[in-house]
């Protein structure tokens, strides 16, 4: 039985890395789940030229808003899956039983969600920007605001996902809970790009987004962890 004794429990850092690896592997093996929000992101944006106007000047005016709103909706679509399969197969319960603080483990899970949703959306934005004639000056600001803003979307959204994971049909409810909380991100994200397009400094908007991100990283995991405990207990 010496073999069993020699197995050491993983350290906190190792557990986080294992969670991250596992989630990423699951996401990349399940490629349709990974691609669907991204395809949705592009499709929503392509509705606006059809529904509003294909005029170049007009589109370049509203491109910022469309890209941000589409990113927000695409993130919303991917949120429900964040804890769902772990809840169904019981691995979420194992996560809760871990001796390490749930706060840290939850951060690892949110981070992996951000990689497969927010980061990919950010990488995809130039395609939409070209389709919607976003002026060239807006690209750096858009990139920076998406990089700071999409982790916020994942963190805030995780609270809603954790609250609704125990429910059979959480999808619409989740959007209802989370959308009002996304407003500041939308305002400052589009604000940064708008300022850049006007030729004014946009660092202020980005700093605000960074402040919100720091606040969300410090506080949201508490709410997510508490919500997961409640969902599992109920």
């Amino acid at each position, binding site marked *: 039985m010496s073999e069993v004794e020699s197995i050491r429990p993983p350290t906190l850092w190792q557990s986080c890395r294992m969670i991250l690896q596992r989630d990423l592997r699951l996401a990349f093996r399940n490629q349709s789940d990974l691609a669907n929000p991204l395809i949705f992101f592009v499709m929503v944006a392509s509705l606006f030229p059809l529904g509003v106007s294909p005029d170049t000047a007009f589109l370049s005016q509203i491109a910022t808003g469309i890209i941000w709103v589409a990113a927000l909706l695409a993130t919303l679509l991917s949120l429900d899956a964040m804890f769902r399969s772990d809840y169904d197969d019981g691995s979420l319960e194992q996560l809760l039983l871990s001796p390490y603080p749930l706060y840290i483990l939850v951060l690892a899970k949110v981070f992996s969600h951000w990689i497969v949703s927010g980061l990919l959306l950010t990488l995809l934005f130039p395609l939409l920007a070209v389709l919607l004639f976003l002026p060239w000056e807006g690209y750096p600001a858009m990139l920076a605001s998406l990089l700071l803003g999409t982790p916020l979307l994942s963190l805030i959204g995780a609270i809603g996902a954790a609250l609704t994971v125990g*429910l059979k049909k959480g999808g619409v409810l989740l959007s209802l809970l989370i959308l*009002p909380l996304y407003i500041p991100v939308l*305002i400052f994200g589009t604000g940064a790009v708008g300022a850049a397009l006007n030729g004014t400094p946009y660092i202020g908007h980005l700093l605000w987004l960074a402040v*919100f991100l720091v606040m969300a990283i410090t506080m949201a995991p508490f709410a997510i962890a508490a919500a997961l405990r409640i969902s599992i207990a109920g």
Partner: protein
Amino acid sequence: MNWTWFHKLGSPKWFYEVTSKWMFWLALITVLLLVTGLVWGLAFAPADYQQGNSYRIIFVHVPVALLAQSCYIAMAIAGAVGLIWKMKLADMAAKVSAPIGASFTFLALLTGAIWGKPTWGTWWVWDARLTSMLLLLFLYFGYMALQAAFDNETTASKASSILALVGLVNIPIIKYSVEWWNTLHQPATLTFTSKPTMAPEMLVPLLISIVGFYCFFTLAFLMRLRAEVLIRENRTQWVKKLVQNDV
């Protein structure tokens, strides 16, 4: 310090019995204050030199707008008390304040729209205050939807209390971000820190009607909470006895 009152507060039965004695007097005070404040404000206060008579909606608009926000804070605090001390009554209090708060928020938006038409020439503008009120209404809707989604009352209360607390942290952020984004609404008429800019003939009825609306809120809140207590405690002896005596 004597904490018995705090523990007593956690007992639904004690709460029900104590408030039974308060209800009549509270209703009386509410009616007196509201009638005084509103009749004075709507009929006797002088007309505004700029807005004429249309400003009189302030006697309804300001109290309901204040209440819409106070009610959310009260709801979140009740939710926190329920989460921390596991008090049944606090959970119920948080639950019953949501529909009241949502109604006040809706009324604030509605009276604002009615006031906006003659003064700004439009029912709605995407202004900071209006938008943050609309978002407050959405937060209330989310809270109520989450509360309704669970079958188990305890889980529902815990989950929605977390949401209310998250919302409470977010309210200042939402408020300041939209304020920074766009502002047309006049600055607050009443602040605690500076001298009132209103004429006393208008201010006094306004203050009376604010207190009246707060009393009305307390009355509606207690009525709903008492009903909720009876529903949730319907298996206990004292509720059965009470219902039998009534029938």
